[in-house]
């Protein structure tokens, strides 16, 4: 299931619904990305997340489908926040369950790598020196290429 929302999310509640009534889910991997203060040696005070309504949801569905075709997954969850965020705020959650830990770890990493390079979100960073759009990182592109 996918959500693109401005509201915060509750990791405990997401965990509970990932495992609810499922005794086959021997492995659960949850990843949460947060707004951190130091990015590429800039002191960040906040972020603004823009997205392309409609395409974002479609891109995330495609990424989930791709993960399901590669690994044995029981349940998947992606939440991505949009709008203004402040230091320490949660930005993104990826959760997967599987009978096997290797599958769950790999799928969660794949979902984050593909989300970062294929889903139409853009970050604008607020810093003491002013606001600017974040550039795409070579290392994120390289991480996503591992799966091809």
């Amino acid at each position, binding site marked *: 299931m996918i959500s693109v929302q401005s509201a915060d999310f509750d990791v405990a509640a997401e965990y509970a619904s990932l495992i609810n009534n499922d005794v086959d889910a021997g492995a659960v991997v949850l990843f949460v990305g947060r707004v951190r203060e130091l990015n590429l040696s800039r002191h960040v005070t906040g972020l603004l997340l823009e997205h392309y309504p409609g395409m974002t949801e479609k891109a995330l569905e495609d990424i989930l489908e791709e993960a399901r075709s590669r690994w044995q997954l029981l349940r998947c969850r992606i939440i991505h926040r949009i709008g203004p965020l402040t230091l320490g705020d949660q930005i993104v959650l990826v959760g997967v369950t599987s009978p096997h830990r290797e599958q769950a770890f790999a799928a969660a990493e794949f979902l984050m790598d593909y*989300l*970062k390079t294929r889903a139409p*979100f853009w970050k604008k960073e607020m810093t003491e020196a002013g606001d600017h759009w974040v550039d*795409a990182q070579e290392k994120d592109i390289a991480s996503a290429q591992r799966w091809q």
Partner: protein
Amino acid sequence: MIKVLFFAKLREQLGCEGIEMDAREVSTVAELRRQLIEQHPRWAASLDDRNLLVAVNQTLAKAEHPVGVDDEVAFFPPVTGG
């Protein structure tokens, strides 16, 4: 008509969220980009950026991808979510 959208840094550079284009003289993404620059010369530098991504009807597409009546075409910088 073709609905053209711009996002993030590109939207700010152009000072425009989107416009409608006559579909009759445009058959590919590359031609659409050329037409946009022809009609808005001030946009040339921003729209010529080779790193820009394009989506046709909300799916990533290449320059030679066909476009036509009622299509939605979006131009945007490389994505930076997550």
